[in-house]
C-alpha cells in the first residue's frame, strides 16, 4: 500500500454548529476521496518546530471535489481543539493525511438497513454515512438514534431536519439527557436497552449498526444490541472521548 503522505490542507470556511462544535472545510489538492466513516490525522507545527497530531472524523460525504469537512468539538483545556476553534481563520494551513480506517465504514452497495447510534460529537462519522446515503439516493432504510444533552447541543440540526423531511427511509430519533425542549414527547434519558429495542423495531434485526460516542454510551449500546439479538459482527463501534482534545 502506498504510504499516506502528509498533504497541505487550507481552511476555506469555518462554521459554528453549536456553542462547542465547529466544522472546518478544508481544501486538500489531490485528495483521493474517502469512504463515509473514515478519519484523518492532522499535524500542527509551531514556530519552534513543536508538533501536535490529532485524529478527526470526516463529516462530509465522498465527493469529486478536493474538499472535506471536519467537525471538531472544543475540549476545554485541550491542546488542539481550542486552537482550531479560537485561532483558526480561513486561509490558515496545516498538514493532514488520510483517509484512515477501513472497518467503521459504510459501503453504499450494502443492502442491510442501517442503525446509527450517536452520542454527542460521535454523530460526525455517522453524518458522513447519512450524507452519502442521501447523495447516492440509496433506498436502504436508515435510523439515526442521536443522544445529546439538549436541543442546543444537536450538531447538524437543520440539515438533519431537512433530510428527515425527504421521507426517503431516513428516521432521526433524538434523546435529550439534560434538558428537553418545551413540549417534548420523545426520549429524554440516556440510551438504554429498552430504547434500542423500540428503535430497532422500525429498522429490523438485520440492521448493520454503527455506534459512535463516548465510551459509556458505546458500551451500553453495543452490549444492548447484542442482547437484543444482533450478531457482534453487525455492531461496529468507534469511540469519541474528550481526552487530550
Amino acid at each position, binding site marked *: *500500500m*502506498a*504510504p*499516506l*503522505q*502528509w498533504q*497541505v490542507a487550507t481552511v476555506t470556511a469555518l462554521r459554528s454548529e453549536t456553542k462547542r462544535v465547529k466544522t472546518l472545510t478544508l481544501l486538500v489538492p489531490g485528495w483521493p476521496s474517502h469512504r463515509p466513516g473514515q478519519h484523518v*490525522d492532522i*499535524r*500542527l*507545527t*509551531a*514556530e519552534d*518546530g*513543536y*508538533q*501536535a*497530531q*490529532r*485524529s478527526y472524523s470526516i463529516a462530509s460525504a465522498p465527493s469529486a471535489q478536493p474538499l472535506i469537512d471536519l467537525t471538531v468539538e472544543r475540549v476545554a483545556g485541550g*491542546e488542539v481543539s481550542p*486552537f482550531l476553534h479560537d*485561532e*483558526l481563520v480561513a486561509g*490558515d*494551513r*496545516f*498538514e493532514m493525511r488520510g483517509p*484512515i*480506517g*477501513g*472497518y*467503521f465504514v459504510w459501503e453504499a452497495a450494502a443492502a442491510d438497513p442501517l442503525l446509527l447510534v450517536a452520542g454527542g460529537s460521535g454523530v460526525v462519522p455517522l453524518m458522513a454515512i447519512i450524507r452519502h446515503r442521501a447523495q447516492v439516493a440509496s433506498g436502504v432504510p436508515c435510523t439515526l438514534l442521536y443522544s445529546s444533552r439538549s436541543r442546543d447541543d444537536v450538531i447538524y440540526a437543520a440539515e438533519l431536519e431537512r433530510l428527515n423531511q425527504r421521507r426517503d427511509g431516513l428516521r432521526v430519533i433524538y434523546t435529550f439527557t439534560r434538558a428537553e425542549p418545551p413540549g417534548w414527547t420523545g426520549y429524554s434519558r440516556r440510551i438504554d436497552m429498552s430504547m434500542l429495542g423500540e428503535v430497532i423495531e422500525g429498522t429490523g434485526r438485520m440492521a448493520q449498526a454503527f455506534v459512535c460516542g463516548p*465510551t459509556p454510551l*458505546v*458500551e451500553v449500546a*453495543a*452490549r444492548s*444490541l*447484542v442482547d437484543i439479538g444482533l450478531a*457482534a*459482527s453487525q*455492531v*461496529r*463501534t468507534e*469511540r469519541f*472521548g474528550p*481526552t*487530550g482534545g
Partner: protein
Amino acid sequence: MGERLVTRGFVGRRAAPERGQRVPPGQYVTDDFPVLSAGPTPRTALADWTFRIEGLVGQPVSWSWPEFSALPAREYVVDISCVTKWTKLDTRWQGVSLDTLLEHVELDSRAAFVVAFCDGGYTTNLPIADVLNDRAFVAHGYDGAPLSPEHGGPARLVVPHLYLWKSAKWVRGLRLMERDEPGFWESFGYHNRGDPWLEERYSGD
C-alpha cells in the same frame, strides 16, 4: 514533506522535559485510560475461558482460567502508546510473561511469527522477537484489580514497545506461524509492526 509548514498562531503545549523524553513522536500524554475497540465487548464466562498455544509447536497447550491464574505472574510498570495519539505513562499491570507461557511448548524451528487471537474475532500479528525476552505479557490485572472487560479483561496481551492495537484485548491464545499474516488492523491499512518511536502508524510509514 521537505519544508516544514508552520501553522500560523499555533503554540501547543509541550510535556515537561523529563516526561517528554518518554513520549514518542506525535503522541500526547493523557492521564485517562481511553477505551477503543471495533465492536461490542465480548463476554465469555470464566468457566468457558481457555488460553491456548498452537500452531508450530510440538504439542499445543491449553490452560483453563484457574490454571492460567495460577501461573507465575509479576508486576509490569510500562508506558503505553495508542496509534490514536495518546500515551499513558507508568501503567501498572499484573500478568504472565510470554517467556513463561512459551516454556510450556516446544517451538518448531520454523516458527517465526505469532498471531494473537481473541474473543470477538480480533487478531494481531507479531514477529516472535517482539514477544520474547520479557517484551510481552498476558495481563489479567491492572492497578491491582482484575482487568476490566472494556480494557480487555479477563486477559489481554500487552506489548508495550509497540502501538496498543498489538496489545490484543480479550486474548484467547497464540498461534505460532512460519509466515507473517496480517491481523485485523494490519489488514485495514495500519502498519505491520507498529513501533511508536519510528511512528509506524500506517502501512508504508
